[in-house]
């Protein structure tokens, strides 16, 4: 049971970023490997607002979502939009390069020291023999609410339906009168805010590490692939699968191999069910 709670905490950190990753993939058909870089930016933005500037953590988190939304929108404008129409492989390589650029900018600005939020010390909640830190509960609750909110946005609101329509068929959306560039920009901003939220949650549950980039990018991408690229709900479920797999690995083997779990799960999914848990199989053209 304790392991399951730990897995949920890991899933809670991964889920918003995995949903963001799949949102960008669905809209633009490329895997943005700079996901880890954006989560790192979110973590340090929240830390800057919370620790040095003394704002409450919730304000730091909201600020981090704004900073990340701006960073992702800027990267889309400067890096990815000029390359629209190029192959997914080209954009993937560009995103890897971007992630290194972001990682080094973060190190340049914040140094190599691990940081922590300015939070009051609180004891864990004890029930049924389980120790659950209050921060972990908060991380799980916030992530769940955010993921459900994005799901509701995509399903029940006109802009959410428009976003899914543009992701499905942008040229048809154009002739149906949808403002395609505006809808795409909205999707980019939502994805950026979700990266910022993941960054804040990482800082609450773990630590704010300048080397976070690839340590978070691989499980985030694995969660999106396991869930089925293009399915936000699948990405959230994928995050739970990855969280469980990481905890099982740490419990039954050694925590050293935790970082390899994402690769193994990606390989298994590609072998057994390439479309992921909730993805739709498509013919290769």
């Amino acid at each position: 049971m304790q392991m399951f709670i730990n897995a949920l905490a890991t899933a809670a950190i991964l889920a918003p970023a995995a949903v963001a990753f799949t949102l960008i993939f669905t809209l633009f058909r490329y895997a943005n490997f700079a996901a880890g870089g954006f989560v790192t930016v979110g973590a340090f933005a929240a830390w800057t607002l919370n620790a040095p500037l003394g704002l409450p953590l919730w304000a730091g988190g909201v600020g981090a979502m704004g900073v990340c939304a701006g960073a992702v929108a800027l990267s889309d404008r400067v890096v990815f939009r000029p390359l629209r129409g190029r192959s997914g492989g080209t954009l993937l390589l560009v995103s890897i390069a971007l992630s290194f650029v972001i990682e080094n900018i973060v190190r340049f600005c914040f140094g190599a020291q691990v940081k922590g939020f300015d939070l009051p010390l609180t004891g864990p909640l004890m029930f049924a023999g389980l120790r659950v830190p209050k921060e972990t509960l908060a991380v799980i609750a916030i992530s769940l609410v955010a993921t459900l909110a994005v799901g509701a946005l995509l399903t029940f609101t006109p802009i959410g339906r428009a976003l899914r329509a543009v992701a499905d068929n942008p040229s048809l959306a154009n002739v149906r009168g949808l403002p395609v560039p505006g809808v795409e920009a909205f999707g980019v901003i939502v994805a950026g805010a979700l990266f910022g939220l993941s960054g804040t949650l990482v800082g609450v549950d773990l630590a704010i590490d300048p080397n976070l980039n690839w340590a978070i990018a691989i499980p985030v991408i694995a969660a999106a692939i396991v869930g089925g690229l293009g399915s936000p709900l699948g990405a959230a479920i994928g995050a739970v699968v990855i969280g469980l797999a990481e905890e099982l690995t740490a419990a039954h083997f050694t925590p050293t191999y935790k970082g390899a779990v994402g690769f193994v799960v990606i390989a298994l999914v590609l072998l057994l069910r390439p479309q992921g848990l909730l993805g739709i199989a498509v013919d290769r053209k």
Partner: protein
Amino acid sequence: MTLLRLQNLRAGYGGGDIVHGVDFEVAPGEMVALVGPNGAGKSTLLKSIAGVAKVTGGTLTLDGRDLAPLSPAARAQAGAVFMPQDRNVFRTLLVSENLSVSAWGCKDIAQRREEVTALLPTLRPYMHKRAGGLSGGQRQMVALAMALMARPRVLLVDEPTAGLSPLLVGEMLDVLRQLAAAAALGILIVEQNARAALERADRALVLVDGRVVRAGSAAVLAQEPDFGALFFGEAA
């Protein structure tokens, strides 16, 4: 009264003109068929009106308004609504969602959906199904309903019967014919089944090599002895 007017319209995709100086008009409630051999420029002409292909010269007006500077989305909102031949529904969305997004920015979406389902009642049973799971004929009906959600003044229909069974071909063309009359809608249709289109259209234009080589009453044109030759491109 003229709804859509093309004067000396030239259009293409950037590598030279495909449509060379076409003139015609479409009136409200009128169904005009564009026929001609493959590669004649029929679909390009439709796409140039919709803004998908580039207008390189001439004038293009809807209700007197110049459409040429407008984006495809703005042309749809102005009333020139295009129904593409294929990939014409959002496959991952429900049919009801397909209709809703097609009236983007409108306050009266529920009312429009009611109007459209009243015009096309066969849609009702599958409103809550995913569009990608429908048959070809059902998908074409959804595509037509999506186009109608924008309350078009003129409907630009590109081969709506492609891939449909002979029974459904007639049904789809009959629906279009009825719509033109019921909604005072101008319809410009490119149809591979030229005979079936001419049976329903008011007027027809025969396009060969991007030029109108014959125009007039659809019924009269269908009776011309050299119609087959024109359609198959031997008279160019």
